[in-house]
Structures are given as structure tokens and as C-alpha cells.
């Protein structure tokens, strides 16, 4: 065989054709079948084809090597030009036009007019674009390069179910690589020619539906086995065409729809890829279809499809599990085991692409990356507080590997505000970093709307806040808080921390009425009622009490005050005794304001006044006890009015210890905040029994204030009463001490939880960049 000299254009053209035929990417030998098809497309008589083959030596060799192929092509050109086929002619014929391969069937697949209007480059680039970046196999969508597709074709997918169906099953004429080459070197007419050549080249393939079987076989060799084609091979089943036609409407049969969808989406993919820049872009139609499919699984577009549902759905596509697994890996952006709408669309798109022969990319294409979710829109906003806590919990929880999701942006600021409002500056670990947000979002998904996640550091914060608030406001509570008061005060805790102040004041207002001087200050406002700790505090119950009752209830609730021994003189002990319900410490007497009010003591409504007034009394010694007691009280069951009373009495006891005569004062002298409460309680206590003795009390109180150390208690019969009250106070004391320790323990636990969560967060954070 003589050497073959080829012009540049011929060289290019031939190499492209060779690549096209070189399905197996051997670069050496082309498949006979393909070559034959090619020759058939040349519209040469069969004998001529045979002759050509013989001449080029393929029949002798049994295969088409590159040189044979080139020679054959040249001979085709010769034959087409009408020259007799001679071996010599390959070199002698001058100005031989390039071999033309006519496509008998024009349409390959519907193409949007725009993309193909004029630019053959588009076509070429389309084919190039159609082929995903790794053209591992030389498989390109056949339809991509239909020369005739240049003419804008109406979206006739439905009219020609076969063609789009077939196209995916046939390898493209050349590798995208070569096609791109083609387009890039359009050398004038030759540039057009090559395109024109391969163009019609492919149309024969279009109509060779039966040939699709061969194509299928070829394709199948490289791609998933036939079962896949069942999914896509609409040509095989006439019903599929109808299905295609009813594509927009058919929904009943999931698989059918999917096949239909795949056809259309495949077309759309091809159409879309004509943009060349982005073969993975999803068209609107595709997207709409994906969205509809998403809705069939998950009606809420902002929700998630769980992994199991997605698995079933995508398994129907009959792709091998390994590939589906890879698709999942690519599309589950945040690695949470669930698919959002965007992730689902990406996955679906990848599945469709895969079904149509595109290789799966190693990385998710940018156009398929799910958009960041705006949490504001989603119902998951509520989850966010709980999420941070979970970020640490699943040590396996994939750290935020994917780019940040702004999803949690909104919730973070909210938390910030709430914490700030309380004016308690906690080192809230709120970050706006993507990793954090991502993790939050992950948690959001993972935990669902679990606002009550007790492990959330965010949740922990409020308790801390509340703890502080509790402490700060606790002082206010004990004042004459009855059980009801306890409830009411607890109400304040239930509300946002920022309302604590107001609630506290509210409580103060009726705290005076509470006979329970030691009404347990409501536990710190715990935002999550489910919090293990908070539940133990029974504050939930207390919260249930309406605030409205505070006023009246407080008045109504105070347990009956045991008859007060004539405490007038010894406001302390006597006051303490009636600590129960009326455990109001009347020894607010120290405050001049209270004195005048004492006459009104009986009228609980006056306590509000008391609440405002007290505070003057202070006994340092009790200051510490009060907070303790308050804390304990807060933790205690609000129903423990008795405890409150005991607290009061205990406090009073303490005060008594320090200043026996200063019972009333004893309660108040504690930290200023408790003071008013105390005072109120005490004043109540004292006022009650001392309605008649208020004068004495005031005197006593004043005396107490003046000289806390020792106030001569009631003499004589009072002693017994005092002793009784002392005993009671001691009991209260122990109870409160116990409560205190419990609360302390709870506090420690909560803090530990918080610390551990923070540590976990710390651990996870670095991995956000892994």
C-alpha cells in the first residue's frame, strides 16, 4: 500500500473520523462495525465499499488500522468524486474533496433553535460540551452532533421519541475532544466540511433503530448493562413514545415517568449542554421536573428527603449501586444523609446524565452545587438552637465539609440578641463562620425542630443566663412569695431572659402578699422545658401557672400563717414562725415605709407597696443565705410554700442567730435583691400577727435594725413560741440547704455539659476545613 499523503484538512478530518470509530479508544484499530456504518453513510454502493475495504487492506488484515482507515477514507472520497477506485488514486487524485458521509435521517434530536441557529461551533462545542469532562470512553451522545441538528428543531421529543431515545445509545461520532478540535480550527470551508461530514454522518445512525441495538451493545459494553437501557430505551417500547408524549402529565407510574423524564431530561441535557460552558447545568424544564419528583416524595420543598426514600427512588433508575453510591456522595452536599431540594436535583441530574452515558464527575460540578439554604424561609429555624449542641454530639457527624450554608445565619443573631437583652454578657460562642453555620445546618437537619435540645450549648447559655438572672432577681422573689408567687416569678423565667427584669418586678409587686417569705425564687428561666435539669426543678409546672394569678393568687394562696406569738417585740422569731403562707417577713419594719404600711398588712394587695419599699433592711449575715435560699427556692417546687416558709423562717432563723431580735430584718438583710422580698415577707409576717402590734414591731424592727445582734425576744411565753419557730426554721433550714445543694449540683452538671459541648464544638470546628 502506498504511502498516503493527506492535506491538513484531510488529516484532521480523518483523525476525527478515526477517533469516532475508535470506540474502544485503542487509537490503533477501529471497530469494523463502526467503520462499516461510516462507509454506509458515505452512500456508496456496497460493492464499492467492499472494494475500498479490500484496497485499503482491511480485509487482508481483518481490521482497520489507522493507516487502513485513512486510506479507506481517501478512497471513499475518491469514489464519491466519481473517480475509479484504484490504489494509486489515493495519491494521484488531486484536490480530492473530503469524503462525505450523508446522514439519511436528518433529525437526531430536538434542539432548541437558539442554540443551533447558526453556529456550527455550537454544535461542535455542544458535542464537546455534551461529553462530560472525563471522556473516559469515547462515548458521546450521538445526537449531539447531528449535522442536521443545526436547523432548529422544535422540541419534537415527543413526536420522535425514537430519536432522542436512540441518540443516547449511540456513541457520538467522535470524542468530544476531537469535536472541539474541529470547532476550534474551522479552516474556512474545510472547517465547515468536517462538520458537515460528520454531521450527516450521524444521521444514519439515527434511523438505525435496529442499529441502536448495535449501538446499545457497544455502548453497553462501556456503560451499565442493558437493564439500564430498559430504563432509557424508549425505542424498544412503543408505549414509551406515548409515555414521552404524555410526559408532562404522566405521574402515576414512577418508573414510567422516570423513563419519560429521563428521555426529556436527556434531551434537555443535550440541549443544555450546547451552551458548552456548562454541560451540567440544569434547564428549567429539568428543574421543574425534578421539583415535581421531589414533591412526590416530600411535599415540603424546604424539607428533606431521608436517605432511605432517596435510595428507593434512585434505585428505580437501575443504575448499579456503586454508581448510585457515588452519585449520592457527590450530591449530598452536607453529608447529612438527607437530600434537600437542591441536592435532590443535583442527584437526579447526575442520574439522568449517567443513564445517558455521561461519566460521573469526580467532584460535583458547580452548577449542581446546592444553593445555600436560607433558614429564614425554612421551618428549621427553630432547630437552630438545638443544633449547635448536636454538633458535638455525633462525634461522627461529618464536620462541615461542604461550604457554609447560610442557613443558620438567622438563628444565630436571634440568640445573640436574646442573650444580650438580658444584659448578661455570656461568652456566647456564637459564630458566623461558615463551618459553624454548616454544622448548625447539619444539626438542623439532623435534629429536626428540636428546640428543646438540652445539650445545645445555646440552650446551656440561657440556663446560665437564667442562673445569673435567677441570682440577680432571686433576691426579689423571696419577698413574701407565696407558692403562687413562686409560680408567677417562675413565669418570668419562662419568658425571655430579657423579660426577667420585668417579670421580677411583677413578682415583686405581689410578692408582698405571699405569706411565703421564702417562696422559692423561680428557677432560672430555662428555655427548654425538656431540659433534664429544668424538669427536675419543676419549673415547668410553675410556669404553667398564669401570671395573672399572681396578684390574686398570691393573695389567696399564702398558707395560713400559724398564729404568731406576740412577735411584736420579737419580730424576729415570731415573725419567723408565721413564716408559712404569711411568712412575710414583717421585719421589714426597719424601713420606715413599711412601718406605715404595716397597718395595711392584712391587706395583701398592699404587698405590692411593700415590695417596692423593702430593701432597706439588710443584714449582711443573711445576705449570703438569701441567695442560697433563693436559689434553692428557685429550684424547689413552687408548691413548696412550706419550704418557702421554711426558707423564710430559716433565713429568719439565721437572722435570729445573728440577731435574734432581727428576725424580720434577718430575711431582708440579705443581698439587696432578696432584701425587698424578704422584707416583704417579713413584713407580712410581722404585719399579720402584729397588726395590733405593729407599733411594737416597728419599734422592734427599728431596734433590730439598729442593733441586730440582740433583740430581746418575747419573754416568757414567747420563749416557747420562739423555740417552736426556731425549730421550724431549722427544719426549713435543712430543707433549703438540701435544695441548695441539689441546685448546685444541677448547676455543675449543666456547666459541665456546656463545657463538654463546647469542647466537642472545638473538636469539630477544625474539621470544617478537611
Amino acid at each position, binding site marked *: 500500500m502506498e504511502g498516503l499523503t493527506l492535506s491538513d484538512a484531510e488529516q484532521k478530518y480523518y483523525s476525527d473520523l478515526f477517533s469516532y470509530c475508535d470506540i474502544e479508544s485503542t487509537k490503533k484499530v477501529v471497530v469494523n462495525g463502526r467503520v462499516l456504518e461510516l462507509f454506509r453513510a458515505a452512500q456508496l454502493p456496497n460493492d464499492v465499499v467492499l472494494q475500498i475495504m479490500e484496497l485499503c487492506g482491511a480485509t487482508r488484515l481483518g481490521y482497520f488500522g489507522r493507516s487502513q482507515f485513512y486510506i479507506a477514507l481517501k478512497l471513499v472520497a475518491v469514489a464519491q468524486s466519481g473517480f475509479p477506485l484504484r490504489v494509486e488514486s489515493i495519491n494521484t487524485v488531486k484536490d480530492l474533496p473530503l469524503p462525505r458521509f450523508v446522514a439519511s435521517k436528518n433529525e437526531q434530536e430536538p434542539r432548541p433553535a437558539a442554540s443551533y441557529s447558526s453556529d456550527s461551533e455550537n454544535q461542535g462545542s455542544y458535542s464537546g460540551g455534551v461529553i462530560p469532562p472525563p471522556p473516559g470512553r469515547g462515548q458521546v451522545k450521538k445526537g449531539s452532533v447531528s449535522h442536521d441538528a443545526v436547523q432548529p428543531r422544535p422540541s419534537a421529543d415527543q413526536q420522535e421519541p425514537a430519536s432522542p431515545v436512540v441518540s443516547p445509545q449511540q456513541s457520538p461520532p467522535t470524542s468530544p475532544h476531537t469535536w472541539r478540535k474541529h470547532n476550534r480550527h474551522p479552516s474556512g470551508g474545510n472547517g465547515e466540511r468536517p462538520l458537515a461530514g460528520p454531521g450527516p454522518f450521524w444521521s444514519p445512525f439515527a434511523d438505525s433503530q435496529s442499529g441502536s441495538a448495535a449501538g446499545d451493545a457497544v455502548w453497553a459494553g462501556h456503560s451499565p448493562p442493558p437493564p439500564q437501557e430498559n430504563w432509557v430505551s424508549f425505542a424498544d417500547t412503543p408505549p414509551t413514545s406515548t409515555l414521552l408524549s404524555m410526559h408532562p402529565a404522566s405521574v402515576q407510574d414512577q418508573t414510567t415517568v422516570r423513563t419519560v423524564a429521563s428521555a426529556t431530561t436527556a434531551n434537555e441535557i443535550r440541549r443544555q449542554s450546547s451552551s458548552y460552558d456548562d454541560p451540567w447545568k440544569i434547564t428549567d424544564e429539568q428543574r421543574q421536573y425534578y421539583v415535581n419528583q421531589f414533591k412526590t416524595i416530600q411535599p415540603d420543598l424546604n424539607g428533606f428527603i431521608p*436517605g*432511605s426514600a*432517596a*435510595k428507593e427512588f*434512585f434505585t428505580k433508575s437501575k443504575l448499579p*449501586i*456503586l454508581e*448510585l*453510591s*457515588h452519585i*449520592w*456522595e457527590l450530591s*449530598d452536599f452536607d*453529608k*447529612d*444523609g438527607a437530600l434537600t431540594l437542591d441536592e435532590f436535583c443535583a442527584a437526579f441530574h447526575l442520574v439522568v446524565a449517567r443513564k445517558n452515558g455521561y461519566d460521573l464527575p*469526580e467532584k460535583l460540578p458547580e452548577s449542581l452545587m446546592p444553593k445555600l439554604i436560607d433558614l429564614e424561609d425554612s421551618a428549621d429555624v427553630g432547630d437552630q438552637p438545638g443544633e449547635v449542641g448536636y454538633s458535638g454530639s*455525633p*462525634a*461522627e*457527624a*461529618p*464536620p462541615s*465539609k461542604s461550604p457554609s450554608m447560610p442557613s443558620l445565619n438567622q438563628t444565630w443573631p436571634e440568640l445573640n440578641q436574646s442573650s444580650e437583652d438580658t444584659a448578661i454578657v455570656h461568652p456566647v460562642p456564637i459564630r458566623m463562620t461558615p463551618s459553624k453555620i454548616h454544622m448548625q445546618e447539619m444539626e438542623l437537619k439532623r435534629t429536626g425542630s428540636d428546640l428543646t435540645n438540652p445539650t445545645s450549648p445555646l440552650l446551656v447559655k440561657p440556663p446560665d443566663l437564667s442562673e445569673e438572672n435567677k441570682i440577680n432577681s432571686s433576691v426579689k422573689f423571696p419577698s413574701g412569695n407565696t407558692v403562687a408567687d413562686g409560680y408567677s416569678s417562675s413565669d418570668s423565667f419562662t419568658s425571655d431572659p430579657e423579660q426577667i427584669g420585668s417579670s421580677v418586678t411583677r413578682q415583686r409587686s405581689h410578692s408582698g402578699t405571699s405569706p411565703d417569705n421564702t417562696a422559692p425564687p423561680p428557677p432560672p428561666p430555662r428555655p427548654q422545658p425538656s431540659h433534664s435539669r429544668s424538669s427536675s426543678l419543676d419549673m415547668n409546672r410553675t410556669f404553667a401557672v398564669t401570671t395573672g394569678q399572681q396578684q390574686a393568687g398570691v393573695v389567696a394562696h399564702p398558707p395560713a400563717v400559724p398564729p404568731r406569738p406576740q412577735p411584736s417585740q420579737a419580730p424576729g422569731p415570731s415573725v419567723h414562725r408565721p413564716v408559712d403562707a404569711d411568712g412575710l417577713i414583717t421585719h421589714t419594719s426597719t424601713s420606715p415605709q413599711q412601718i406605715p404600711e404595716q397597718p395595711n398588712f392584712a391587706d395583701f394587695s398592699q404587698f405590692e407597696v411593700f415590695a417596692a419599699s423593702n430593701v432597706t433592711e439588710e443584714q449582711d449575715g443573711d445576705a449570703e443565705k438569701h441567695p442560697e435560699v433563693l436559689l434553692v427556692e428557685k429550684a424547689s417546687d413552687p408548691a413548696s410554700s412550706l419550704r418557702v416558709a421554711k426558707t423564710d423562717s430559716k433565713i429568719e432563723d439565721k437572722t435570729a442567730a445573728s440577731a435574734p431580735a432581727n428576725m424580720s430584718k434577718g430575711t431582708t438583710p440579705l443581698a439587696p435583691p432578696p432584701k425587698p422580698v424578704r422584707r416583704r415577707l417579713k413584713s407580712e409576717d410581722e404585719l399579720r400577727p402584729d397588726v395590733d402590734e405593729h407599733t411594737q414591731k416597728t419599734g422592734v424592727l427599728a431596734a433590730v435594725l439598729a442593733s441586730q445582734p440582740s433583740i430581746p425576744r418575747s419573754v416568757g411565753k414567747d420563749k416557747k413560741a420562739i423555740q417552736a419557730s426556731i425549730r421550724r426554721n431549722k427544719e426549713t433550714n435543712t430543707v433549703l440547704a438540701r435544695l441548695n445543694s441539689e441546685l448546685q449540683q444541677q448547676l455543675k452538671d449543666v456547666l459541665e455539659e456546656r463545657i463538654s459541648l463546647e469542647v466537642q464544638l472545638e*473538636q469539630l470546628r477544625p*474539621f470544617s476545613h*478537611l
Partner: protein
Amino acid sequence: MAVCIAVIAKENYPLYIRSTPSENELKFHYMVHTSLDVVDEKISAMGKALVDQRELYLGLLYPTEDYKVYGYVTNSKVKFVMVVDSSNTALRDNEIRSMFRKLHNSYTDVMCNPFYNPGDRIQSRAFDNMVTSMMIQVC
């Protein structure tokens, strides 16, 4: 820089094992296999305590003259075994821990994939890539 990384299932069969090809892979397989005994020993040692309290990182399982073997076990009794070159003295415990953590995270991702059946061999490309990155780290 690990020379061999293996993921062993709860039932002590390998889910994933990969070693640097230059070495005799069989040797590494054997080392991993023998290390399982050590792992079980360590697990049972703290078995009395709550599982939660048991630390996931087991530390150096046993050293040989050429290699050191580190172990890590998850709460679901999936074990990660890593063989590192003894000559690589720069490798600190923290680094080993972080490598195990990365392994654990990648393993979790594999688990999250609904198409992965627990007990199957791990064929995730992402996991492969991560392991590769760990194995070709420059020491």
C-alpha cells in the same frame, strides 16, 4: 504517614484495607490481623466501665522494629488500624489522633450514604481519596 490503613468491622472482618503498594502487602495484612487481638484486649480492659467513657483512641497497640501499629475503635465496635513507619519519628500522638478522627469522619460519611449497606466493603471514592491523602502525606 501511614503505610497501611485498615477498617475492620465489628465481626473482625475487614471492610477496607489499603497499604502502600511498595511493601509486601501481605505483611501488613498480617500485622493488622494480629493487632486485632490487642484491640480486643484493650476494649475488654475497659469494658467494665461504661462504653461512653471508653476512649475511642486506643493508642499504640504494639510496636515492631520497623513499624508501629495504632488502633482506634468506634462506639459501634468498628476498628481502625493504622500502621506507620517507625522511622517517622516526627509523627506525634496528636497527629495520629487527628488522622483517626479524619478516618472516623470519612467513615461516617460512608455510613450516611443510603446506598451503602453496613458490612459491605467500602468502595467510596471520597473515602479512598481521604485515605490516599493520609498515606502519601509527606512525613
